[in-house]
């Protein structure tokens, strides 16, 4: 089977992959809650699952900022500089 076919099989089983990913994500947070932190430079380094929360909220924040910036300020039509 060629590489392209392999990828196609993976894509077609997206639902299974997604479930595996959910389990992995949950495992990550559980591990972070259980394993005592090895760093204490910042208070949040000892909060279990902070990375997950920061990643998720950071994603929403960045997409929000980008969308707002584009929509209200910087988006122009593609021929803006042509005339």
């Amino acid at each position, binding site marked *: 089977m060629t590489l392209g076919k392999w990828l196609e099989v993976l894509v077609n089983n997206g639902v299974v992959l997604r479930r595996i990913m959910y389990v992995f994500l949950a495992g990550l947070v559980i591990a972070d809650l259980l394993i005592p932190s090895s760093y204490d430079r910042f208070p949040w*380094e000892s909060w279990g699952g902070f990375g997950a*929360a920061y990643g998720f909220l950071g994603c929403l924040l*960045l997409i929000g900022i980008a*969308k707002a910036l584009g929509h209200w300020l910087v*988006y122009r039509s593609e021929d803006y500089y042509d005339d």
Partner: protein
Amino acid sequence: MTDVLHPSLLLFFGAAVVALLRGRLQQAWMLLLPAGVLAMVFSLPLGSAGAMNLFGMELLILRVDTLSMVFATVFAIITLIGALYALHVRDTTQHVAALTYAGAALGVVFAGDLITLYVFWELMVFSSVWLIWCRRNPVSMAAGFRYLIIHALGGVVLLGGIILHFLDVGSVAFDAIASDSAGYYLILIGFMVNAAVPPLHAWLTDAYPEATVTGAIFLSALTTKTAIYTLIRGFPGAELLVGFGLVMALYGVIYAFLANDIRRLLAYHIISQVGYMVTGIGLGTIMALNGTASHAFTHILYKALLFMGAGAVIHMTGRAKMTELGGLYRYMPITFLLYMIGGLSISAFPLTSGFVSKTMILEAAALDQRAIVWLLLALVSVGTFLSTVLKIPWFAFLGQDSGLRPKEAPWNMLLAMGIAAFLCIYIGIFPGWLYSLMPAPVDYNAYTVGHVLWELQLLLFAGVGFFLLLKYVGGKPKISLDTDWLYRWLLPKVALSAERLVDSLWSRMLGGLMRRLTWLVTTLIQHHGPQGILARTWPTGSMVLWVAVMLAASLLVYYL
């Protein structure tokens, strides 16, 4: 080390030979030359050579120390990879430009004084612009001219700074520049133009996406990273760079999200990643500078890999916009997988090169107790992952079928990407090799449980957010205004209105002058013209009469 040949000389000479060769011979030489340069750089002993005195200035053409070797090594590696990637291109101008450009970049990192540095700095500009122009369409011609003008201005500022610095200090030696030197800020600005620090960054995202597919690899690797080298050398610990670096990292990652052209998206990520390095230089500790140098090293490899992946797509489909791509993974699976390795590396995913270098800069911030720096840089990692690992792959390679049925990229492109991908993974798994090249001994372990858990949570949960918002994150057929708006829109408009104003004033002045002249001429014609009173021909009779009157008058006066 007086009998050492400068690697740049070999590249310049080699570039001239490329111009003379054609066909298979040229291709063989295109590979032999960078391979030779790589071997030469590896074998350079530490020390210096080429000292000379020019008008009372002590020049040092070749200074080899651990810092210059970090950059020279990766420049030589990427020149070889870039040449392999461009092997199928039948355009001698591009090959000559790329090799000269690489030689000039090596010249900058080996320059021991500011004059030598400046000469190579300018040569980089004038050789690299051909990699944009060689796309040979009106858009890239115009972008190339803008690129040239901005760099020419940056070069003038740099030269001004160097002159002031020399007059003040009495030396052109290139080491850390004292903050009380007269040329401090001008030299800093000159370097910051090439590092693409906002608001002086727009040349990069304007021009790189318009460059040739193969030329963009050299562009993405060399200009900003020579600037990072000069900043590490000249301005370590300059506090204002922390602020600039953070703005840069965030700016790039947010603008990248707005881009539709895949290479423009990646170009904004150059700005963002160089932002990490600029921040690291500002932090200035040994850990931060090692982190910056190693991040520059890994960045060149993964960024070139990303540009090669995007370039392969453009080469095979002729399209660059996410809104016009999709479903390519079936037809270009190798390109897709290699691109993904670059994407994971730039996002600092564990087991890839970015993880062992980027986290070192964050660690330096943590050791310095800089909470805001640390949090913002972590936030930027989230954005990087979103754009390069999720957005481009989803909308260009996976996602909706665009109907495109391209073939896989040519073997030389795939091999070049494969080498870069191998190095990304190798460095990610065995960071010891990279760390052994660093200017100072590295006392850092990226693979602690804490680091890995943090990074995986950060990135993968960002992915959850992305798929939740999938409906809203696709590319839009729009362009985003950036600071180049000032000279692409505002300045021409101002110039045009100024021209109109001068034009109308001029014509009004001419009109006024004309009316006066017309009046003068009409008056003259009235008096002196053929019908004018003074030009009239008087009859002889009236003359005789007037003479008689005058004679009579004089006779009368005489007798009285």
